[in-house]
């Protein structure tokens, strides 16, 4: 007998594979359904020059537009399976190489920001939800409400202005200096310095989501017998907050994390654009500006796959935790 958790994971995987397949098909058909020819769109941009028939045909083959559409789909899928995402002309590099260079930066930002917004959100939410309506709750909830209402790109721009331009203590863009230091320790330090503002902007945006979640949960938890009992036994301070509230919050946080992942990748896009951070968001945005549709398609497919994979893992962990109760 297969344990239900495995079945659950498999069905989750099935849904995600289906979604991924649909996305791949959409990415394939979208440029072909819309009016206009990708080759002509490409040629009508700044790179325009007159091509003769042979060159145009060669370009078509390079864009995967030779033959009728079942043939094109076959070529496209076969390339995708082999990991060939095409060639980006404006960057003069294969798409997979560009992605390989940029994904670590995005993951660096997310993995640095996640502990910050999870911890601050949880700590603030527990503190506020323990005594709703008290002094701390009123102040903190008010502040978080205002912060939640500043769009992520605006808060990023304001941070950039404050600490990058008006009071230039931190670098305002990029992921490391133009000429990286040869000393590895110095280089790590530079990378960390460059990551501070983007990480801060990203966390600031995500804190509110987890703050409100933790606050709501803490309010209901405060009514539960085991907390009342713990308070009655004189347990307070750090132990009450971590062992009693914190542990009970964990599954809820994980469950929300899998929903929040899409939003997180959206927010990281804006943050990277504002700070010209060389991650995937910046890459995608420049692909849009350059009308580099091959790069755009490849990046969207890879990022979607990454989001689906992460979201599946988090979901599986969350369900197994929720089953434990």
């Amino acid at each position, binding site marked *: 007998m297969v344990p239900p958790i495995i079945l659950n994971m498999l069905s989750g995987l099935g849904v995600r594979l289906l979604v991924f397949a649909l996305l791949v098909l959409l990415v394939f058909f979208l440029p072909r359904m819309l009016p206009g020819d990708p080759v002509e769109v490409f040629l009508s941009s700044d790179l325009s020059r007159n091509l003769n028939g042979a060159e145009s045909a060669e370009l078509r083959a390079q864009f995967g537009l030779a033959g009728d559409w079942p043939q094109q789909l076959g070529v496209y899928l076969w390339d995708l399976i082999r990991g060939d995402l095409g060639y980006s002309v404006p960057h003069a590099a294969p798409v997979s190489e560009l992605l390989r260079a940029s994904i670590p930066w995005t993951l660096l930002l997310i993995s640095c920001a996640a502990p910050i917004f999870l911890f601050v959100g949880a700590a603030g939410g527990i503190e506020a939800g323990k005594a709703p309506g008290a002094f701390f709750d009123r102040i903190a909830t008010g502040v978080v409400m205002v912060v939640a209402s500043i769009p992520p790109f*605006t808060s990023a721009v304001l941070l950039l202005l404050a600490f990058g331009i008006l009071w230039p203590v931190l670098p305002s863009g990029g992921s490391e200096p133009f000429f990286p230091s040869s000393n590895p320790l110095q280089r790590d330090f530079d990378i960390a310095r460059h990551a501070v503002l983007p990480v801060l902007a990203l966390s600031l945006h995500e804190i509110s989501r987890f703050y409100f979640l933790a606050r709501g949960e803490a309010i209901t938890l405060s009514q539960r017998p085991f907390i009342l009992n713990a308070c009655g036994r004189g347990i307070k301070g750090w132990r009450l907050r971590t062992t009693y509230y914190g542990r009970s919050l964990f599954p809820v946080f994980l469950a929300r994390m899998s929903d929040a992942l899409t939003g997180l990748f959206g927010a990281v896009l804006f943050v990277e654009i504002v700070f010209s951070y060389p991650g995937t968001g910046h890459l995608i945005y420049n692909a849009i500006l350059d009308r580099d549709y091959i790069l755009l398609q490849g990046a969207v497919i890879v990022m979607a796959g990454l*989001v689906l994979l992460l979201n599946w893992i988090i979901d599986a962990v969350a369900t197994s935790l929720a089953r434990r109760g």
Partner: protein
Amino acid sequence: MLGYWSPITQSTGFISRGAIAAAGVLVMAGFALSESLPQYKTSPDVLQAPSMEHWLGTNGIGQDVFVGLVRAAPITVFLALITATAALVLALAASSLAAFGGSRIRSAILRLVDVLQVIPSILLLLLLAAWIQPGFLGLVVLLSLTGWHEDVRVALPILLRELTRENVHFARRMGASRRYCLRHHILPAIWPAIVGLFLQNVRQAALKTAGFGFLGLTDPRLLTWGSMIQDSMDYLYTEAWLWLLLPPAGALSLFLVGILIIGEGYMSNGSLSGKEHHDPR
């Protein structure tokens, strides 16, 4: 017990209807006014600091920032309201279909919601927006189609709960028609949740449309606060950010805070939480 909550639900319903009507009037007034406003046109006075002539200065191509701010207001607000309404209507239609249509349809709809839940919609939207540069209508369609499923997850359980309550069973037994039950028992009960969802949708829609404006992926003729923030990005290293960035960013944030506060006030005025509290069951 049956009519116990009707005064409150009716009064809150009245308030929310009043708020919606007021918003509608404001938006209409904005549109009417924008015709009589000075044109948002380019001029040789580029990057002027705020003065009597240009209250909030001018931008890089000599457009008056204050005029832009006022002209963008109805578009930004209306865009958010319409998108929120469209998403809500879609969600309510799907929820009622799931609630009334039998178990097979319900599980199909829940499955669809699950699928939409895991789609990284921002990537999809970016891809679509890059290709079609959506204008007003395009944004409404794109954002409502990718945003309705979240509402189903909230609306469906509430709808199912209300459908199986005693008052509905009782009324049906006494010969009330389905339509009567819907109007007098179910709608008043779910109305607060609908308003809450609507306000949440407005915030989401406003954030997303501003985001698209900021990325410059909307139709360039569509003037929103988001696109005005985008305009200011090139002038962060000069003094001009003071009057280019702060007014649209402030207006957008004020709008979002306002919606949040209306929602909070609405919730604490006893509709959602109060109802749960005094529920006899």
